[in-house]
């Protein structure tokens, strides 16, 4: 607690996630990113006079999926409402959202901090709404803001947490876990760079031990997961400093500036909105019956925690490894497939985590299409296990696999990488080395046992690295100590 000079932060997050649907939420336009400006539009999403919204069933289904994934309650009847404000990228002059009767209530996110501490945070609600367009503010030399309405009507869910997080690290852990669940359920791509996932933070601080919340501010405009953590940390420190110096926090909306690492208040004019919510008369109440809810539940994919527990139980791996391996569905699927071809869960986990991820990180390749397929990694693991190759050889094999995409067998054959475990053959070599190095044998026998490595090195040199190190060690010890 001393981290913030006797103050305790109170943090709540509002996460906006774009739903991965074929079409937009209220019209048939394609829900896509990166198309030329204003090409994915129609009278409905342009808000032309007389056009009317019709709700996209797939968007509702995705929302239900997320609500169930976090253990929330899907409301059988929810109501759309208009949130009224003027802005050029909001062509109707209102956003269709949900207000006092959202589709989802409650739920809880269980997450871990980087040191492994387990935490959880409850959710207030999840509601469905439409995204606005984008204002492209003037570049140098231009005098007009341009508006791209392609994003108008992209379906969103807003996931609102309770103010239950107490540090920037918790907020980071929570946010990453929400992203992971969104990706697992294919509700949202989770891509922050493209704006598919956005996060606003409500932050206040209070003296440790005080029940009552302090005045909160809202920080927006973060564009990475770590950026969220940094912005929250910045804002906590700003508030604490303010209070320490005898000042007080004023309710405000701040924008995070990633390049300068500061959050600054918006002009008060821009934030003093009275949204004048009222029920959207162009849409009927959203009725979701239990049959529909059960149907979505039955088709729910395995969630991150379930997968992680299964990995620990079935593949006998450590919880930390399970956490790393279930980070994304593509990685978890890869590891799952490796395990179809081998029984050694731990070795396989090590190989996927250190070797494979290392290579992918450097190359930027996509794991699901990478040329080293799960069965090829399993081959290596199995050959290590059966002592056909040593760990060191395995690395050579893998490096060649990454290079050429050839199978382990082919590489081993081509490079002659066969491990010598035959004791007779090795003893003959050892004997000749011992007789050729009597001086060193004497040194060893007189107590300088650290010279043991010299003999191992000689055997390896003699066998071009193909000797089984375990066997060599055992035989050398017998000879020298005997």
């Amino acid at each position: 607690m001393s981290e913030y000079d006797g103050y305790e932060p109170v943090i709540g997050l509002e996460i906006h996630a774009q739903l991965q649907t074929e079409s937009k939420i209220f019209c048939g336009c394609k829900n896509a990113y990166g198309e030329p400006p204003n090409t994915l539009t129609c009278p409905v999403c342009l808000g032309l006079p007389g056009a009317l919204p019709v709700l996209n069933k797939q968007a509702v289904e995705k929302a239900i999926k997320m609500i169930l994934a976090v253990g929330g309650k899907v409301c059988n009847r929810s109501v759309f409402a208009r949130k009224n404000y003027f802005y050029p990228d909001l062509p109707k002059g209102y956003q269709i959202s949900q207000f006092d009767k959202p589709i989802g209530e409650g739920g809880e996110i269980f997450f871990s901090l980087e040191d492994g501490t387990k935490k959880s945070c409850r959710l207030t609600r999840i509601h469905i709404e439409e995204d606005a367009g984008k204002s492209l503010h003037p570049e140098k030399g231009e005098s007009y803001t341009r508006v791209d309405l392609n994003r108008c009507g992209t379906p969103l869910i807003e996931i609102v947490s309770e103010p239950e997080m107490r540090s920037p690290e918790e907020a980071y852990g929570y946010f990453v876990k929400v992203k992971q669940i969104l990706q697992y359920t294919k509700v949202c791509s989770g891509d922050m760079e493209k704006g598919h996932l956005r996060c606003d933070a409500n932050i206040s601080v209070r003296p440790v031990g005080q029940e009552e919340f302090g005045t909160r501010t809202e920080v927006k405009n973060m564009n990475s997961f770590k950026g969220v953590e940094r912005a929250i940390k910045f804002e906590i420190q700003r508030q604490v400093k303010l209070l320490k110096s005898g000042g007080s926090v004023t309710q405000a909306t701040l924008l995070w500036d990633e390049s300068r690492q500061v959050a600054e208040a918006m002009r008060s004019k821009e934030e003093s909105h009275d949204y004048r919510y009222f029920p959207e008369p162009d849409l009927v109440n959203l009725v979701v019956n239990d049959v529909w809810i059960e149907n979505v539940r039955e088709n729910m994919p395995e969630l991150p925690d379930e997968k992680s527990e299964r990995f620990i139980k079935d593949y006998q791996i450590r919880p930390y490894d399970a956490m790393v391996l279930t980070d994304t569905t593509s990685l978890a699927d890869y590891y799952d497939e490796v395990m179809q071809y081998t029984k050694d869960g731990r070795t396989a986990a090590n190989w996927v985590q250190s070797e494979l991820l290392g290579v992918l990180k450097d190359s930027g390749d996509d794991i699901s299409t990478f040329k080293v397929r799960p069965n090829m990694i399993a081959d290596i693991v199995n050959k290590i296990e059966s002592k056909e190759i040593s760990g060191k050889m395995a690395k050579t094999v893998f490096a060649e696999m990454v290079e050429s995409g050839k199978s382990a067998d082919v590489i081993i054959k081509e490079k002659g990488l066969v491990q010598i475990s035959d004791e007779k053959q090795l003893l003959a070599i050892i004997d000749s080395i011992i007789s050729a190095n009597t001086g060193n044998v004497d040194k060893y026998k007189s107590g300088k046992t650290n010279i043991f490595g010299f003999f191992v090195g000689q055997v390896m040199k003699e066998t071009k690295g193909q000797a089984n190190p375990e066997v060599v060690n055992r035989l050398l010890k017998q000879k020298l100590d005997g």
Partner: protein
Amino acid sequence: MPDYKELTAKQMADGVKAGKLSAVELAKEAINLAKTEGKAINAFITICEEKALKQAAAVDALAKKGTSSPSQPLAGVPVAIKDNISYTDYATTCASHILDGYIPPYDATCVKNLIDAGAIIIGKTNMDEFAMGSSNENSFYGPVKNPVNHELVPGGSSGGSTAAVAQKIVPIAFGSETGGSVRQPAALCGVFGLKPTYGGISRYGLVAFASSTDQIAPLARTAEDIALAYQAAAGRDENDSTSVTFDHPVYSEKLATDKKFKIGIPKEYFAEGLDDEVKQTVEEAIKLLEKNGHTFKEISLPMTDRAIAVYYIITSAEASSNLARFDGVKYGLREAGDKDLTTMYSTTRDSGFGAEVKRRIMLGTYVLSAGYYEAYYRKASKVRELIRLDFEKAFNEVDLIISPTSPTAAFKLGEKIDDPLTMYLSDIYTASASLAGNPGISVPFGKTKDGLPIGVQFLAPWFNELSLFQISNILQKSAS
């Protein structure tokens, strides 16, 4: 060609389908009248000559091949539509300066349905700006005059569509209703005006005033024609979530009936504020129908005196939001475009909207504002539910409700324009049914001693338009 002005839509369609009348000739006549007599009463904002003549030629071609019947019940019938209904290639102005230059890139579903039925869209009619008004004086394009007497208002907001039918420029026109905008002018001009059940005709393409009560609504000179018009336009539309799936009967075939209706007389609709002559005329209609075997019963709709207040709170709230899109950014008028955003917004909207529209935007913004929402919008929504229950209860006892359509006959241009509260009372007998979603029809019946038309209104349970057409037909036949 027989006298165009005396032909009903039914006669025109039958004639065109039989090859006895030419849709092109009918369209030319309608356009000619729109340009002459229509101009004298300022009924039209735009004449859709080019497309109308093409459509008419296509209908004639189908008729020649003998393939139009019966899928085109309005084959070759010239139809006018209110200028808040989207129709590709022609401006949709809503009689507002703010929509200057706006041409919709899509057709309203209603327009598609009409064209499929063989109708020829000959023009876009004048109206109160954004359908807000009861006299058609709130138009950027000037007031419409009542065909009966050019000194008088035609009623509103669908004044242009109504006057075009009354002037016999077209046998059928479509307006829109939010609280009486077709029934009230129908009464003042002496034609039939139907407000369909909410959800009967798709609103897709109708520029919204108050989404929860807006309905596209037909006008005609006979009960049969208005039934045909409704039939052609109605139906569930995938583009309008609030449109309703309903198995509509073929109304024109069921028009003649021996059925004896049980009709309720709501005492609240005959109270203070009702003009004596209008009252006497409605009483005459009751006597006439009684003579024909229909029975009458006094009923009560206790929430009636709250309806106008509730109506103006709810519809203004919705309007304040619906009209937010007219901001100078995307289409229509833009003023002070070289200034900052807020200045551009306020200058554009100040210059683009008329006084009545501004009044309602301000009222609507107020009732939705933090601190006032509960007291106004929320409370009005609750009373609206009570109004709906009033009707539900009443229709447990009676088949139909009879009342005056408007408290007075047509009044003078300028007479009420500076007194909005008095003007708002023009909707006192029509607004309740709009809030409740029930269908209603205004039937021309009788005249004042000055020769001004009077309208008798019938209201029915949800989706019982058939009874409205039948009673209209009965009253029309017994009056003549």
